[in-house]
């Protein structure tokens, strides 16, 4: 996993609530057996017409947002199916962070396993950021994970965010959870012995 330290990127506002993982990556694309290559199918049914052409009015398709790496969105993002393909697709497409008032549990977890930083901000903050993004054709933001702040160049935007310290540590160092857990293999073995 790539370490996540500082991200400089542009926002794209996707102002909807309850976006489920069936929308993020529809099931017909779950059949690949690799982790990569899902980006082209991200939000497939919203992004493409039946003939495969782009839907012009879908926000991700607007030229100004093509290179966005920060997704701004509504409550309960990533609900529904546990498919990690949703996190893979967002990452593969180019997103590195998602800002929302709330996330669904499994999706939230999946993001951290893949170097995609989900940040929970108060609803009013998200609404402001979405409004400003719309008015300015996207905002150029810096997300500094170490100091837990999101800011723009003239510091008109300067938002602190919370994150669990363990998850932060793993993200900053790009650490593989399995390796960390295997350091405790003796405890696992002991537990198994007691259990029997």
């Amino acid at each position, binding site marked *: 996993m790539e370490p996540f330290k500082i991200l400089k990127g542009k926002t794209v506002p996707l102002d*909807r*609530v*309850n976006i*489920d993982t*069936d*929308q993020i990556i*529809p*099931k*017909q694309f*779950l*059949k*690949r*057996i*690799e*982790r990569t290559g899902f980006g082209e199918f991200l939000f497939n*049914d919203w992004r493409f017409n*039946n003939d495969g052409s782009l839907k012009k009015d879908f926000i991700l398709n607007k030229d100004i947002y093509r290179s966005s790496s920060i997704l701004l969105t*509504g*409550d*309960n993002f990533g*609900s*529904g*199916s*546990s*498919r*990690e*393909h949703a*996190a893979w697709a967002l990452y593969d497409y180019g997103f590195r962070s998602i800002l929302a008032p*709330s996330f*669904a*549990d*499994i999706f939230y*977890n*999946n993001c951290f*396993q*893949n170097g995609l930083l989900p940040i929970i901000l108060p609803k009013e903050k998200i609404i402001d950021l979405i409004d400003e993004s719309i008015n300015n054709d996207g905002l150029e933001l810096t997300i500094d994970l170490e100091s837990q702040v999101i800011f723009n160049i003239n510091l008109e935007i300067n938002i602190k965010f919370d994150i*669990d*310290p*363990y998850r932060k540590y793993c993200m900053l160092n790009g650490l593989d*959870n*399995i390796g*960390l*857990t*295997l350091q*405790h*293999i003796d*405890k*696992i073995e002991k*537990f*198994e012995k007691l*259990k029997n």
Partner: protein
Amino acid sequence: MVNNNPKTLLDKIWESHVVYEEESQPSILYVDLHLIHEVTTPQAFEGLRLAGRKVRRPDLTVATADHNTPTWDRAKPITDPISKQQLTTLSENCKEFGITLYDMNHPLQGIVHVIGPEQGYTRPGMVIVCGDSHTSTHGAFGSLAFGIGTSEVEHVLATQTLRQFKPKSMEIRVDGSLGFGVTAKDVILGIIGKIGVAGATGYAVEYTGEVIRSLSMESRMTICNMSIEAGGRAGMVAPDKTTFQYIEGRTNAPKGEEFDKSIEKWSSLNTDVGAEYDKLVCVSGDDIEPYVTWGTNPGMVVPVTEVIPDPEFFDNLQEKESAARALKYMGLKSGTPISEIAIDRVFIGSCTNSRIEDLEAAALIIQGRRVNANVSAMVVPGSYAVKKEAENLGIDKIFKDAGFDWREAGCSMCLGMNPDILDPGERCASTSNRNFEGRQGKGGRTHLVSPQMAAAAAIAGHFVDVRDW
């Protein structure tokens, strides 16, 4: 004796599975049963191989092929090459790592959440995980069961543990009794309608109360299954006699003296008097009616006696907009009575409602009648064992005589990864758990209902109140 340290069911299971804990870190939790299927595991096995790791406990891992399996003639080759590749990959991985597999041609194959309990793998007090959000189903046995992502699947394969923060606990108490024609599906749809699709996010839900106690294991599974549709991490019901009776004699369940000892242990798995949940929700069973969803998430639901709501009456702008968008997608107008909505398809199946009790209930409704000429209806039993039992009882004949397709077991049109899908614009009364846009096929319109309501709609050609049937 006064219990000075009363605990919830969640506390008890959690504490007995903590392998290691450190301040402000997720606990390392031991996993008793790891269920796997073809869609969410190929990348996990790949990861293991790349890191040169083994599956730590193949004996605690059980695999099924269910999501992609065709429900028609299985002697024919699978037409979709990528589906086929996923199924083959699962078989190869199970072979390489020594994991028991219920593949497409296994006589006991079925949906992972149907066969786990049916084969006696699912038992009280266990921690059960699977790369599938509806793993919450297994909580009906008083286990802590939840869905995980593929990276976590890999973590469990390699270590037989998971790193988890303890969820908060929520009690949903359903007191009173259910009226005639009201089912477990209506209970959970009613709850989701009340607390919303994120109402239980961050919580493990324990269902309690007279209604829950009176329900069969099948019905409890239906309720726990859809906990995730309210955002819940897990759903659970404390085990009781109903639970023990269900487990007794199942293939992989303890036998004889060992079974008796198990019951003793399982009997302590309940929430102590005085233990506190982080949140309490009360529902009266008497207020629950047969429900029908009208929108594109399971929280968009009304009783069958009502009309399609007006987005204008929703609380805030976002909700108004989502309701309006949902109605547009569903091709519905506010004010239309639910009973006037005509349907094209009926799907009875999925890990929510494909067990023998569900099929029996639906068969009672359709007995001696014919599916409406404008409707195409199918039944997909949750497993081969369910299918066989139904056939022994003659239920298949009732369905077939009425004009239903009687299919092979699997997930089928619950998510349409196999050829069973809705065409764009088609409207379906479905006993599954998700009515998301495109879930059952691009442009398809899904209304979630109980098996009885689906069966009645198949005959009438539109939704009807089963209480008037």
